[in-house]
């Protein structure tokens, strides 16, 4: 009764909700080819006009950073606050900066 070896491959789906926005990861689904993945994504994730563009990527093609490396990857950015505009105090009289 079970057919574990013939499961349809998994795809991750990214949707751009409106022109001007980024594609956002919304979840995954099963499909056998790219065309089917797009159609399934359309039927699963855009029933309520939530999308103008769909990206479907085979889950096995996604390369992810390792959470254990979060410190090395992301911590160094934390103390470089001078990258943020709010770090700088500009007198109120100067309007357009």
């Amino acid at each position: 009764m079970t057919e574990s070896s013939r499961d349809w491959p998994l795809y991750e789906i990214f949707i751009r909700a409106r022109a001007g926005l980024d594609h956002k990861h919304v979840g995954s689904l099963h499909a056998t080819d790219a065309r089917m993945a797009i159609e399934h994504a359309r039927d699963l994730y855009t029933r309520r006009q939530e999308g103008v563009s769909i990206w479907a990527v085979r889950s096995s093609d996604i390369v992810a950073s390792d959470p254990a490396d979060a410190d090395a990857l992301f911590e160094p950015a934390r103390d470089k606050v001078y990258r943020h505009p709010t770090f700088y105090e500009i007198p109120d009289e100067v309007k357009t900066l």
Partner: protein
Amino acid sequence: MTSHCRYVLRLADTSLILAQRLGEWVGHAPAIEEDLGLANISLDLLGQARMLLTYAGELEGRGRSEDDLAYLREESQFLNATLVEQPNGDFGQTIVRQFLIDAWQLELHEWLQESKDPRLAEIAAKAVKETRYHLRYSAGWLIRLGDGTEESHARAQVALERLWPFTGELFAADDVDHEIAQAGIGPAPEALLPGWSARVGAVLTDSRLVEPPVTPFGWHGKQGRHSEHLGHLLAEMQSLHRAHPGATW
């Protein structure tokens, strides 16, 4: 009833009965994704049917609503193409039926966008986008089944041969069609045939399926003479509504 009204009812009933058939699949499709896909087509077709039934009721001028027309007409008063009342069968038969109608509806809706009847043109402008997606879905699946496994190929071929005889009716003109074509309201049915044949032929080639020979068709659903299947379908569809005359839901 005028030819104009009859014509609109033919379009409405074809969408309605096909939507009803697709509704039977919900919860029983080969994968969750296909439950959603078939339900999506059903909803689109129901939407088309409702707009067309409402319009037919207005043309008729007897105050009948979309529900009056859907639930209180007798079998012989339904004017759908006989193809759509055929049973779902297996998923292959459902896909073949869907594909043959989608290819026809695409020709039809593209033509109707230029109809002299502005209401039909408006309905068609919306419907044509839906039909393009339906055709993409059904053609995609027909190719997967025809060019899939030996079993899927065999089932698709059987379904094609079973349903092909019902396609003739789509392109045969009667007096109503002549009047409608003369008035520029709808296409001459045979005018839709070349586009349909080309598209169907191309997909059948990609599906590795053999186009069945033309059979002299003997079906007249659009004149209210149906196969045995419509009676059962309507009995189920109309039973609750008819059991409570005058009630609102």
